[in-house]
């Protein structure tokens, strides 16, 4: 973990509602792992005391990119970052996804919205190829499908309104696939998206006696494990306890997560 000034190398729209911010960030980029995140300070938002967490989407040499959606005042202010501007970054933070998949097993990625960002970084760093299921509300929320294809991944899409891929939740194509493939493959799940999606993937993994690595999303204060703002009830070696999503996560195995509702 380091604190480093990043320089904006590019900042472009992806589709209509998402943006890619590419930063020259040599030290953080050097050790970044898929599933880890960075904590970004939006200095021009004068009255903000908190940084904003973003998954690492790409690492190319000294450059690190994030893929973000504008949802509030911080991300709205981020939109005005111009090439050459500098931003303070703390990272890489948290524990990422396990990169190795036992031979014979098939990596199955499940993502929603910006959740595909860490999965794309993962796909680029994995030896194996596998299948990706993307879900979203509308077509505009389906990102990176082609990029995954280019990497040789099989891609299945579902949207709530059916504007792209199958109509329905991402679990629709996922379940269909699981049925056809049962016995033929041993899936190993990697998921990032809304809690509902994570829970659904976890349930299937537990039922099928497979592993599922889920990346959780919590509001954060420090991002380094100090403030205890981001806790999640978990089961670690039989014991119920609270883990810090920023430090002990954000990636947890489905069996370790205790979902509250």
């Amino acid at each position, binding site marked *: 973990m380091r604190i480093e000034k990043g320089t904006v190398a590019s900042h472009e729209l992806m589709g209509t509602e998402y943006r890619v911010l590419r930063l020259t960030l040599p030290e953080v980029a050097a050790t970044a792992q898929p599933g880890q995140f960075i904590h970004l300070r939006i200095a021009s938002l004068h009255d903000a*005391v908190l*940084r904003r967490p973003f998954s690492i989407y790409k690492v190319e040499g000294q450059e690190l990119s994030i893929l973000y959606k504008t949802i509030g005042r911080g991300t709205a202010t981020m939109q005005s970052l111009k090439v050459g501007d500098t931003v303070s970054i703390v990272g890489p933070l948290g524990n990422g996804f396990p990169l190795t998949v036992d031979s014979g097993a098939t990596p199955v990625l499940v993502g929603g919205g910006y959740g595909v960002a860490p999965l794309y970084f993962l796909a680029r760093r994995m030896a194996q190829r596998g299948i990706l299921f993307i879900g979203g509300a509308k077509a505009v929320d389906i990102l990176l499908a082609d990029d995954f294809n280019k990497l040789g991944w099989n891609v299945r899409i579902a949207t709530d309104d059916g504007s792209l891929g199958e109509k329905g939740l991402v679990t629709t194509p996922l379940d269909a696939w699981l049925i056809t493939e049962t016995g033929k493959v041993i899936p190993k799940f990697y998921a990032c998206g809304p809690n509902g999606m994570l829970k659904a993937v976890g349930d299937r993994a537990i039922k099928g006696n497979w592993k599922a690595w889920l990346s959780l999303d919590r*509001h954060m*204060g420090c991002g*380094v494990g*100090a403030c*205890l*703002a981001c*806790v999640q009830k978990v089961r670690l070696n039989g014991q119920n306890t609270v883990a810090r999503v920023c430090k002990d996560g954000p990636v947890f195995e489905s069996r370790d997560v205790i979902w509250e509702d």
Partner: protein
Amino acid sequence: MVQCLNPVMSFGKTKMKPTLAIDLAGLKLKNPVMVASGTFGYGPEYADLVDLNKLGAIVVKGISLEPWGGNRTPRIVEVPAGLINAIGLQNPGTRGFTEKYMPFLRKFDVSVIVNIWGKTLEEYAEVAAWFDTVEGVHALEVNISCPNIKAGGSSFGTHLDSTARVVAAVRARTKLPIIPKLAPNVSDIGAFAKVCENNGADAISLINSFPAMAIDIETRKPILANVSGGLSGPAIHPIAVKLVYEVAKVVQIPVIAIGGITSAREAIEFIIAGASAVAVGTANFTDPLTSLQVIEGISDYLVRHKMKCVQDLVRSIKT
């Protein structure tokens, strides 16, 4: 008593660099800049980013006798120039903390101040007794802004009598310097500081965060699972300066000022108002290097104002 450690000497040796070192209630500090309880964990969390040996002191997250789980999430929400937190004092308890974190902290040449709390007078006393013998613990900061279970949950720190009893109970069980941390939501803060002094406090720290809340107008639910929490950050700084000024007027023991420090400027404001030391809280989240920048900034200020030693600045306000 706070005193400037051999100014002339260090003055000579480090080409006109003023000395920041102080002796605060028996605690020898390299400089008057601490990190505030709950905003810096137990030490390891920020150690990759901040050289702990450079800090005046580390005040660790509040510790209770037994492990405590804290509140449900969401536990924090950002507000203009501040943050409301309702962590709920989650901590591993006296034994858990001592076994898990003290070995790490002992490796550093930095004063360790343990922030303690309890749900009853007895608990405060027990926690104090425990740490009295723990090697590497230099002082105890006593968080009195906690619900007094036996008194229907109203805070110890908002009543003079319960404040006096907590301080006396802690005093009775430890030889370590004790530093009661005052609740800000009282009308006469000076009276609370005086009561602490009279009951054996070696120093006073203030302020803790302010009772506050935020509501999601779409769901009409409080944003924090705990309904309300404590406001911290730049928003409370001007209130903290006033309270520190009032306290420094009435007590002889040193004051540690906390509240909205983001740079040397706010820290120096506190010192001029009467603080002998300061602690950086929420700003650690905004920029983990804040405490180090504050140390540098105070040093630069002293040079610019031709002062030998930070102590010369304490309560130098001109009114």
